């Protein structure tokens, strides 16, 4: 049985298999099951700054506009002071998870403004999170704001958080950077202790009947993994900070691939939502089996052996490889 211990963001984890930010963390018992099945750490679902603000303002507008407007009714809902519109429920859930499991609990923050982040990061630290995962993404819809400007703003956000909390901060990135290694280096200078690749988004679709745009989130599958492997293979040679793989890991084999590409941790969400939190045991078993078969005594030993600078054929990770795959592709109709 190989040793799965890994170090991530300065934390020692019993396994690189980590529960990714997902609705699973709403359920304390599911998380406990994942941990007893072998999860090395828990990343909570994201505290969405935008959503919190929207809800706060929505409730405020609603309650306030209905207060003191009618002779017969002071308000139309019970006094607002009896319930919370801030981060309290999130923090309370974090407390519960921390009490229930003995692995690090990492908070996930999803925000849009430098001001908003900081308040929540402080509260998260005060409530005993082991680390913070910042979920950075910006859907560029304006032709007036350059990629550099967006990156600069994101860095300012990271800097402001890092300067405020002592906790290690890792950043969950989208795939849409012209130079991912360069941006990660800037994140590192800004004080980030890790990055995870890649965030997944709601997939907009077109409703042909309603002539409208529809959005929904679908579970990932293993076909999404190669994009991550590629980024991991490059980042593991260009940055010394922790790197995590998120999105597309559905089996022990997938996890092994991510580790071989350089991942310190492998984050799992869709697979656990589909098969239940205890399924982590299956993945862990498969990973172990593979490590044993290949004679690795630990997952750390296997980490990064197929990264850009150590793969037998480094060009395979580079653009040339992309051309070859294209070359090899044939229209479906011509296949037998």
């Amino acid at each position, binding site marked *: 049985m190989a040793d799965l211990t890994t170090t991530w963001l300065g934390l020692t984890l019993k396994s690189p298999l980590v529960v990714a930010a997902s609705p699973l963390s*709403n359920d304390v018992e599911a998380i406990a099951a994942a941990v007893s099945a072998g999860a090395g750490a828990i990343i909570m679902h994201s505290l969405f700054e935008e959503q*919190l*603000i929207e809800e*706060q*303002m929505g*409730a*405020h*507008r*609603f*309650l*306030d*506009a*209905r*207060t*003191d*407007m*009618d*002779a*017969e*009714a*002071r*308000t*139309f*809902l*019970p*006094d*607002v*002071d*009896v*319930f*919370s*519109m*801030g981060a309290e*429920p999130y923090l*309370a*859930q974090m407390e519960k998870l921390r009490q229930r499991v003995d692995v690090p609990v990492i908070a996930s923050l999803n925000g849009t403004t430098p*001001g*908003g982040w900081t*308040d929540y990061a402080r509260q998260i630290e005060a409530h005993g999170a082991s680390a913070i995962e910042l979920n950075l993404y910006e859907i560029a819809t304006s032709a007036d704001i350059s990629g550099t400007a967006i990156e600069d703003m994101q860095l300012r956000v990271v800097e402001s958080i890092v300067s405020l909390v002592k906790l290690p901060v890792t950043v969950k990135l989208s795939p849409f950077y012209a130079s991912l290694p360069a941006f990660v280096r800037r994140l590192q200078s800004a004080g980030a202790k890790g990055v995870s690749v890649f965030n997944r988004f709601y997939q907009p679709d077109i409703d042909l009947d309603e*002539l*409208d745009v529809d959005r929904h989130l679908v579970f990932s599958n293993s076909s999404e993994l190669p994009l991550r492997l590629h980024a991991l293979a490059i980042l593991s040679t260009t940055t010394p900070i922790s790197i995590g793989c998120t999105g597309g890991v559905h089996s022990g084999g997938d996890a092994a691939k991510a580790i071989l590409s350089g991942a310190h941790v492998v984050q799992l969400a869709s697979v656990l939502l589909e098969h239940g939190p205890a399924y982590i045991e299956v993945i862990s078993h498969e990973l172990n089996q593979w490590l044993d078969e290949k004679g690795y005594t630990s997952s750390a030993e296997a980490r990064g052996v197929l990264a850009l600078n150590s793969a037998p054929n480094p060009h395979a990770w580079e653009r040339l490889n992309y051309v070859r795959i294209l070359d090899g592709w044939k229209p479906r109709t011509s296949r037998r």
Partner: protein
Amino acid sequence: MDSIKYQTLDANEAVARVAYRLSEVIAIYPITPASAMGEYADAWAADGQHNLWGTTPDVVEMQSEGGAAGAVHGALTAGALTTTFTASQGLLLMLPDLFKIAGELTCFCLHVAARTVATHALSIFGDHSDVMAARGTGLALLASNSAQEAQDLAAIGHAATLLARVPVLHFFDGFRTSHEISKVAVLEDDVLMQLIDPDALRAHRARALDPDHPVIRGTSQNPDAYFQSREAVEPFYARCPSVIDDMMARFATLTGRRYHLFDYVGHPEAERIVILMGSGAECAHETVEHLMAQGERVGVLKVRLFRPFSVEHFISALPSSVKAIAVLDRTKEPGSVGEPLLLEITSALVEATARGTRASLPRIIGGRYGLSSKEFTPAMVKAIFDELSRDSAKTRFTVGIRDDVSGSSIEIDQSFDIEADDVSRAVFYGLGSDGTVSANKATIKIIGEETAGFAQGHFEYDSRKAGSTTISYLRFGPRPIRSTYRIQRAQFVAIHDPEFLERRDVLATAMPGATVLINTPIAADRIWDVLPIEVQSQLIDRHCRLFVVDGYGVAERAGLDRRINTVMQTCFFALSKVLPLDEAMRHIQKSVEETFGRRGPEVVRRNIVALESALEAMSEVTLPTQISTTRSRPLSVPADAPDFVQRVTRLLIEGHGDALPVSAFPPDGCWPTGTSRYEKRAIALDIPIWQPDVCVQCNFCSMICPHAAIRTKVFSPAALEGAPAGFRAVPESFDPELEGLLYAVQVAPEDCTGCGLCIEVCPAKDRLQPRRKALVSEPLAEHRERERESFKFFEGIESAPLAALPIDKRSAPLRPPYFEFSGACAGCGETPYIRLLTQLFGDRLVIANATGCSSIYGGNLPTTPYTTDRHGRGPAWSNSLFEDNAEFGLGMRLAIDVQAGRARSLLTAMRGSLPSPLVDALLSAPVDDSWVESQRARLEELSRLLQNDPSADARALLDLIHHLVPRSVWIVGGDGWAYDIGYGGLDHVLASHKKVNILVLDTEVYSNTGGQQSKATPIGAAAKFATAGKSIRKKDLGLLAMSYGHVYVAEVAMQAKSAQTVRAFLEAEQHPGPSIIIAHSPCIAHGYDLVNAPAQQRRAIESGVWPLYRFDPRRVDQGEAPLQLDSGEPHLDVADYMTNEARFRMVELRSPERYATLLQAARDGVAQRRALYEQLSHIHLPPEKHDG
């Protein structure tokens, strides 16, 4: 005594704080204006706050005040310290128990926010008619005149009843005292504890019904025993005044505030005095001091303990010098020699004189004042003193109105004014939704709690739920403020929406030199010229200073939408200078943090941004010396409005109703209908504008509109003649039956509330620009003129005959509505059902309406929405009470049946003298609309024939002839009525064979009184009295009704499934017996923007939370199951429905675990109910065997 702690409170809160701490059981039921006391108690109990003895009182909401009184009686009988709060009809419902409680010498203190009892009309406002109706119960009646007194006498009442064993009804004036905020020296726990006599408390508990030492109470007694045992209570009543007076003395040693049973203020050798109780006494107090300073020998005697009336205490409080007394009653007892206080005082004086305690009987006159919160001012007090000086004084009079019918009123010198210069007075006109009242409450709190000064805030609201107006009256001064009347002369007037300048005389109270602040986006250098001439001349004549601020701009930039409270509050402090500005700013910021802190940091941040940028957006307008316009304020009702509307309604709309004399009013409460159309409120910012090229003519828009402000019509092309330029119509293209006709969608721009529902449900999209629907939202200002002219023209167009079309979801909205432009909330989920009801049966509809939202938007003056057609026919509507509506409607049915039966018998008896085919046709069974139309034609013929027949039968038949058109009787009300207070009656009416239809507008809470839970509230929802989330399932009212077997039952949801709703309405009306339709009614109390109501209603249906069905007993005869399910197997998780409404979400945020449990219970409930209904929809019942 420790240093006094002050807080700014209204009497409701001040009293609730005392009653809560001194009680173990609190049984409540919401009623205006007392609801807040129960709500406070409930909220504190939900937070686990303790009473004086370290336990959390058990706060229980009952199904009616009658129920609350029963629970109170039981709790007292079993030894708990118990209280309740009520008013008006609520108190009346408690009377039977109150007689029992007093008869059994039970220690109990009840708090009443005194309110008018409904007579010719309901009124939510204050007078003593309710309390006086309770004076026979045997409860002591203790009156408070201010929030301070209400708090103090509440404590005295609770403490004294334990010693006296006479229960106490403590009362204070509804709204004027219950809702007026002022600075109150609060009672700490230790003071309360020292008031309570431990032995008396022990004795109260020892009297509890207890099987360890049993007694029997509540026996039935015979003539041999009853009278004597009734008299046995007498010593307790004889002792009671002294016990209360002693308690007042004890209270004084603890607090320094000394009350007496009768408190006299005035000249020690006064010759003229007024005697009264309640808030009016404070106005009299203030006036007496003013008149005394001018050397007059006057005084006021404030009655605190009305019953048991102590002649001894009264006589010793009354100066012996008095020669003339005016006794003022805030109630009317028609036909009496005098009102209750007058009779009591007269008897007392006669008795004292007879005994020789007084040398002679002074002259006594009696007057009525202040009914339904009518103003009572120093000028009126002065007029009463003047009347007392007259040789020929009216012995019975009214004051405050002009009685040109009976001549009872006395003249008032309106210029008499005693307001002191060192009191700051400010008047604010706000929109209900803009936060003005909340901001003013915060301002009072700052001044009342952060400075040594005194403050008073009184607030008025109109009866509209959309676009309502609020007026705030604020006073600040160095002394306690006794001015229990509106501000007559203000140094500061704020107009928080520029529309008010066009609607009413907002500067009426601006005194010379006043500062006037207008919230407007128009800049200081351009505002002058847009002001109407009335405003310009007032500003110039009174040498006012004028300021403008773009409050909406500041609020919007700060991310607060149009919520301008913080902005306007800041401007007020800057201009009024009641505090140094930097100090005020500091306090406002603190107040924002305290008020909004719990709602989240972003709310605080945005309000502080608004606060900080407010003053930059304000500037002074340099006033010219001359007016620059000839434009007058627009007419408040159109020039062509009927005479009654011009004479009466117009003044009510303009806020001048007080000036109307008695003769202007119908004496029996009967008013003309259809007046809402004359009140063009223009409250929408944006209105829907029709895009005919995109429209598919589905009529979804007119079907959903809560205000009948968007209409659809099919008509002949010839009708287009004379159409204004902007009017648009297109060929009808939906229904082949209507080929060749035209179709139009038309908005009533000045009646639309801008709720957006029509646009939300519009299914048509421009295929090249999908964002463009067949209705687009456009600014009212840009379209008002054109659409107004178009709507006027549209209304005049005669609809094409629709009789050939089946009535369905498409054709029903083409029929004319008889319910329009009500004051219901924007997006109201109830009113579309009523509008539809009138579209189906409006010309023969009789409605019995339970009190609640539907009676307020249905029948609250100044204007009402039920209207008539060109024949003058339309719904006849009445509201009796909250609790009796089903019975009220049944009574109407009985009356109609008896008259229709008589008409039919007479017709049958006259068969020989009338054409047989006509008689047969007249007696035929009603079929549909065209039958009704033909019947009306037949009746015209019959009428013509009868005119020539001099027989008694013919005369009698002529009087009843209209009853040969069947009446459609509908009993309408909300869930508070149907599920709770009126359920017994509703159940009884269903258990009859009478043809009445019941429409339950189910908002799942008491909407009108502010969202208290009813038995219709679903599990998992937070509501008042269920703050932590209701844990019991919603009552299945439909299932209970089905259990009778002969009742037609349907559950409908018209915003999502209007076809089924239309079917249910038609079937209910066709059903020969009783029917009940339970209608899902989205409401603001659900906590989401009602523009999303159709989608949310769809979720309710798809999750199974709101199953659609029809239960038709007639199907049994056809061998079918009576129950048909109209919604499919639930396929949406209940959570997906619940998560979209704040009422559920707040439970989740408060306690995710509790929410999870309640959610699962809700899911289980849905599954079980579905399973039950599934089975019921497949059962086959043997048909009933009919005789003959």
